């Protein structure tokens, strides 16, 4: 069971890591802004290709060894879990090292070709673009919150029925395998944690909506489609994750209050279904957004180019722009969002809820 789960996750993660150079915004290569006329350059294409080949090659070898070792030596569950986790981090570490290598090479390429010295740098926006934004409104996220508040109330009502040992962790078979002593606080830890997560999702949606819709002067249409697709699908994805997370944790919690409420098979199926839904959702999201700006053909404008934001992107990965009131901006290497580290609101939305969750789990 552990092997299957880890295999699915690792194959999936390696697949996305491999495809990243082809899923990112087309004018940014390894975190460096490249103007339209250089995008098809052979050197740059070879950087992308080399990255993809190396990451997929290493991933396949490591996965092969992992499967071989598991089937041959039949190690304990714990060893499999440990090895699986190490492999995940290993692949991430390897692809990030490659990223930095090619980030450096792309910077050198840009310097060598004196890119962006003789053209006008402009930044544009469309006054009507806000009316085309299809993000979900924040109050939709209240739906799962209401369910959790109900669950919280029900738990307090049924406090006497709760068992003396409150589960704190569930194994891959859907059965609890770690417990804590019952007290008024431990009884509601799970619904409280869920609530904090839901509020964080809601905050992320609000923060994203308030953040800028960044259009590119050189390819206005492609960037508009990409930004609007990214915003729409990320708000839907976050909402779906919030709903299914609520369903899964509510099932677990209800089972604690009423043991045997659901048959064992359902308890195994629920976390597995959740995993599949999240992975499938990520895949659909990455493909939808990744393809969004690659379909419209636009004739490159030679006299203007986008303002070079490279100085705001530390290492091509971390966005620091004090002037920009955006809380989140589109990632440069990967599909999705990144925090504007110069805006304290971002920390408030993401870091505070995580700290609260950590606190809840340690108390």
């Amino acid at each position, binding site marked *: 069971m552990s092997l299957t789960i880890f295999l699915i996750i690792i194959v999936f993660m390696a697949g996305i890591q491999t495809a990243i150079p082809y899923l990112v915004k087309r004018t940014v290569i390894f975190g460096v802004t490249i103007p339209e006329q250089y995008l098809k350059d052979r050197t740059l294409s070879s950087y992308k290709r080399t990255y993809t080949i190396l990451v997929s090659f290493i991933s396949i070898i490591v996965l092969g060894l992992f499967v071989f070792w598991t089937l041959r030596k039949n190690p304990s569950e714990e060893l499999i879990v440990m090895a699986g986790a190490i492999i995940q981090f290993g692949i991430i570490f390897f692809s990030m090292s490659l990223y930095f290598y090619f980030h450096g090479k792309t910077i050198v390429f840009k310097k060598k070709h004196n890119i962006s010295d003789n053209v006008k740098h402009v930044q*544009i926006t469309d*006054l009507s673009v806000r009316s085309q934004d299809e993000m979900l409104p924040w109050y939709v996220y209240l739906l799962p919150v209401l369910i959790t508040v109900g669950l919280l109330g029900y738990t307090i009502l049924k406090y006497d029925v709760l068992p003396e040992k409150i589960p704190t962790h569930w194994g891959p078979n859907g059965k609890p395998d770690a417990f804590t002593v019952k007290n008024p606080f431990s009884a509601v830890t799970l619904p409280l944690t869920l609530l904090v997560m839901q509020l964080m999702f809601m905050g992320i949606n609000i923060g994203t909506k308030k953040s800028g*819709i960044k259009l590119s*002067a050189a390819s206005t249409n492609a960037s508009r489609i990409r930004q609007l697709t990214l915003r729409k699908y990320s708000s839907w994805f976050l909402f779906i994750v919030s709903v299914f997370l609520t369903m899964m944790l509510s099932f677990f919690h209800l089972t604690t209050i009423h043991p045997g409420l659901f048959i064992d098979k359902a308890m195994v199926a629920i976390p597995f279904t959740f995993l599949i839904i999240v992975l499938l959702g990520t895949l659909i999201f990455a493909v939808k957004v990744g393809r969004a700006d690659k379909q419209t053909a636009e004739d490159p404008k030679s006299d203007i180019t986008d*303002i070079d934001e490279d100085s705001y992107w530390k290492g091509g990965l971390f966005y620091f722009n004090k*002037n*920009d009131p*955006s809380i989140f901006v589109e990632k440069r290497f990967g599909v999705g969002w990144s925090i504007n580290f110069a805006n304290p609101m971002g920390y408030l939305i993401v870091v505070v809820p995580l700290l609260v969750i950590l606190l809840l789990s340690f108390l």
Partner: protein
Amino acid sequence: MIIKIEPQSDIPIYTQLTNQIIEGIAKGEIQAGESLPSVRSFAADLGVNMHTVNKSYHQLEAKGIIKIIPKSGAVISSPTQSIDTVSQRMSGALRSIIAEALVSGLEREQIQELVSSIMNDLNKKE
């Protein structure tokens, strides 16, 4: 309507914004009664400081071109100032530009031609 700014230009960004919004209204790309984006989202979309957008909005308000209504934002207003006041202000602004044009060697006809070609450009429907 597309707004295009050049951060490296000598003209400050808020002036660039003001000029382009005025031109957009002159061209009919945005009309009286329509509203401009909120300061926050406009600044976020352009990646500029909120003060920059704020300054431009206040400039437009001082010229009587927009009204800043609390809670509903900046709305383009129809001309409210009397023709006299407007002509007086414009005459002052045009005077120095025309004087500069004459000093730089343009003839009366050339200046008139320039004015009518700019007028035509602003009247052109896209």
